[in-house]
């Protein structure tokens, strides 16, 4: 099972840049890029911050996909 997300789609719908989203949750633009490209798996704390900032359910924002 691989942890994936729809962060990019949701962020773009909310018309936020990677930098704006990163600043609002206290991480760098590079960290947002890494999460969006599935290279970095955020901690629960960051995942919840992102979910709250984007006003999107955490289990919809992040999901497991079978290999």
């Amino acid at each position, binding site marked *: 099972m691989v942890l994936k997300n729809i962060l990019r789609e949701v962020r773009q719908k909310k018309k936020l840049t990677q930098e704006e989203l990163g600043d609002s949750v206290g991480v*760098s633009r*590079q*960290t947002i890029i*890494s999460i969006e490209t599935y290279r970095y798996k*955020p901690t629960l*704390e960051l995942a919840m911050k992102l979910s709250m900032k984007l006003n999107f359910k955490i289990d919809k924002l992040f999901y497991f996909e079978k290999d």
Partner: protein
Amino acid sequence: MNFSKKEISIFIEILFSILFAIFFLPYFYDNRFEIYDLNTSVNKLIHITIFSIIYFSLAYGLLEIFIRKKLINDERDILIDLKSYKLGYILYEISLFSFIGVILSVAIFDSQMYQNSGGLVFMIVLWLVLVSFIKSAYQLYLYRTS
């Protein structure tokens, strides 16, 4: 290729290791068969200290001038730091065991190079530069791939 401020600061560390190896390591290599005397090496140590201060002041000063954005140290940075420092720690451990092995080899095999403290000093400096270079290179690799 687009590099972040953090990645450029790692480049600065890598470049320092390379410059140190080019300018200062030959001195320790040339004196590897000598008895290390702190009084005769004091000039070299002052050179190294002055060079390090000027290099890092200039490099980080220029970095701050050209990239004004404040560095955010987030959970990804902490994770990458932990991984790279762990590698550095393992390498330092290996070097410590090698160092002990060399000291024992002096007693057992009567090794010429390490009979004088110059050889041991060269080995320590070489390991420090190598480990620092490998740690920084691995850190940069992690920043680019994770």
